[in-house]
């Protein structure tokens, strides 16, 4: 493989990726290989290391050790080229409240060096797609949480990324917007975009993701399709049952029982 040519069979690859904060390792020797066009679900209980992993994958948090490769490009060595291929939606998308929605998307297009005519076309397509055209010239500070989510998603797509990282993307979205998001992600996947999705809503993961990784206490404890996870956990039922079985679910079940 020639570095920097993007010729890897894997769109996302991590090699012994580790992040420690003092003596606590939030992510411990994570190895992942995700091919182009896959929607990969990344699950785990609170504090398992999901957000830290995503932040390392997009270059926001430097790993303590290990490597991240995006489309065959080593993230640390070829940071700009690797980042140009990806887009990121954090769990809480803090935006520039004093920009309008349209300005914000144009700003992101500028950051990703999208030629102006192409940016214009993309924005004209994206605003109506997300139902933002009527409020596009209002300041973002007047948007609801859901509208902000849609704005940041529209901005993430303006440069047509090869990899999309989404951290809890459905938080704050109404059912209609959540459905729209799901349809868009599936369409992107069919066009070859890799989607790396962290979510707490297991139903979404089960319906959308081709493969699922479960992380607990910084370690990847399960990886595969839903069927493969069923086999491995030897639990029948939904993904929720598998998840609870693998991550210490009985305690939660007991709580639910007492509360009911």
């Amino acid at each position, binding site marked *: 493989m020639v570095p920097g040519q993007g010729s890897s069979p894997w769109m996302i690859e991590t090699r012994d990726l580790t992040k420690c904060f003092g003596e606590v390792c939030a992510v411990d020797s994570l190895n992942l290989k995700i091919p182009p066009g896959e929607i990969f679900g990344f699950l785990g209980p609170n504090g398992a290391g999901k957000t830290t992993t995503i932040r390392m994958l997009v*270059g*926001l948090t430097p790993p303590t050790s290990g490597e991240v490769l995006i489309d065959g490009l080593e993230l640390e060595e070829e940071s700009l*080229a690797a980042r140009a291929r990806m887009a990121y939606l954090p769990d809480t998308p*803090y935006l520039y409240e004093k920009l309008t929605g349209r300005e914000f998307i144009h700003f992101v297009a*500028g950051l990703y060096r999208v030629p102006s005519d192409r940016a214009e076309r993309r924005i004209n397509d994206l605003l109506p797609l997300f139902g933002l055209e009527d409020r596009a010239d*209002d300041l973002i*500070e007047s948007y609801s949480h859901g509208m902000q989510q849609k704005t940041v998603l529209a901005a993430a797509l303006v440069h047509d990324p090869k990899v999309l990282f989404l951290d809890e993307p459905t938080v704050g979205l109404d059912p209609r917007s959540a459905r729209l998001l799901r349809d868009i992600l599936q369409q992107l996947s069919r066009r070859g975009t890799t989607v790396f999705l962290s979510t707490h809503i297991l139903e979404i993961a089960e319906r959308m993701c081709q493969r699922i990784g479960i992380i607990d206490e910084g370690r990847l404890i399960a990886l595969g399709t839903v069927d493969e996870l069923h086999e491995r956990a030897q639990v029948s039922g939904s993904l929720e049952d598998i998840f609870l079985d693998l991550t210490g679910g009985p305690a939660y079940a*007991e709580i639910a029982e007492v509360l009911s």
Partner: protein
Amino acid sequence: MSTAGEPAGRVPPRAAPPTAPSDSWIRETLWLVRGRWRIAVNSVLRGARWRAATYAVVGVALAFLGVMALGGSYFLTVWIERLTGSDATAVDVLPATVLSATLSLSVLVSFTVALAALYLSADLDLLLSAPVSRRSVFASKLIGGLLPSHLLILTMAFVPLIGHGLALDYGPAYFAAVPLALALLPLVPMAVGALAVMLVVRHVSPSRLGDVVALIVAAMTLSIALVAGGARQLQDVVSLAQIIDVFERVRTPYSPAEWLTRGLTAAGRDQSGEAVKWFLVAAAVSLAILVPMLFAAERLYFSGWTHIQAGGPPRRAGSRHLPWNNVDAAASLSQPSGLFSLLSSPTVAIMRKDFRIIPRDLTNMAQVLSPLAIGVFFVLQRLLYPVRLRGMATQPELIDPLLAMLSAGVAAAVGAMIMSRFCLTAFSIEGRSYWLIRSAPVSNREIVTAKYLVSMVPYVVLGGVLVLLLELARAFGDARAAGGAMPGALLEAFDPLLAVYAWFVVVVVGAGVLAINLAIGAARPNMRWDTPHEMLTPDVGCLSLVLYGAYGFLATMALLVPVAASGFNVVGSSGPMWGLGLGLGLGLTAAVVSTSLVLAAGETAAIGQ
């Protein structure tokens, strides 16, 4: 919550239905105030060490200022006493002025602090939805907001009053009465401030509340800057006796400050009956105003809160459509054009983004009004009081270049004060939105270039305008002194070459100053602010002032010396001096700019991790 010995995850049996947490709103209030106090203590003791160190440095600085104020008031009182032959009315001007100023400051501070505490704090949803009485929420917010700011204000008043008492050799009754007077003084302003807030929130859009605070703070700083600047001029034209006379005339018999002044001075002169009388008047009137006003404010508090909720949360606009924003204007954020096409697309996008978001938040602009006021003051001063050598109608050749350099110094200082603030907060202004730039394919160099130019471009323009105005003012003074017909005489007196060189000096010095500030801002950003004034911490401001002050002085001197030495004559024997001055000034600036920008780029990588 599990108890010892209970298995993890086991939920305890349902407890008895909750009762009211307290039967007394006073106890609830004290409990809430203790909570605020705990948060404040934790933020100092458990916060970053640099923050604790900053508080220590600020404490030492305040102690130093306190000693200076004590000495100042002591000697001023002695001086007034000697000057007026122990005239009691004249001597009492000092405590009267201190108490009146404190009262005025208290009114302004009470309004802004009460507005922020009662309606703009982040935990109001939690508190007002909890089973705690609204009265205790109101009272705790008011106390938590007003107490710290008033402690500072009253301490500032306490020290000169003590110095005044020591100078006049007053007895212990005076020193016991000072804290009592200061405790009574802010009662009326607090009540008026709280009630004014309640009325304002009914008539001002919630989205503009933050801007209201910003404008009031701006107006305060502007007035202080102009009064402080004008005081020197006043000193030149009137005597101290005249100033005392003016202060005596503005003493009004209907102000709590005046009643407390009379009580204090009576206590100092051992007239206990008179002292008790005035303190009783002040206390009775203050309480008579305070109690109903506070009750009225409390009644209006919750309806004000619901009004804000109906109009959206504080600092969030309703649907604010910007008339100047259209598709083409927005598109410029992704389209480098003109001179900007020399820069990379991300650099231009970041610059244009900053040029839009900074003026749209009035709080940002409010913080630069004070230096801008100083700039306006200097221009007016040069226009009204042109610097001239006594008894000389025309100025020697050397004076004009020196005055041009003075213009350059003033323009550079004002421009640096204004734009340094934007450089120091260049990264902090990104706040929690920095993830967007950090995760995009943008190099550190591109980010630093954008941030540098965001301050440098307006600085160059502002510096040019100030130099032009100051030089025109100087030329106007010369023309008036020469007595020629005005447009012609003005044009004759104005030297464009001098103005261009002054602007050059301003630009060179500013390049270094802004680079230093950008490096400091990159090294110590505060990305987790809620209101723009939190972006800049006092220690960063002090460090910046020391570093850029030292550089600015050296660079200006280097560029000024050859001008002074040659009388602005480039040709001839002064050539080596020019070479030396320009070489030193430009060399120093090049070294400072390159080092600072490299350091800033290095620090940029670590921001937001």
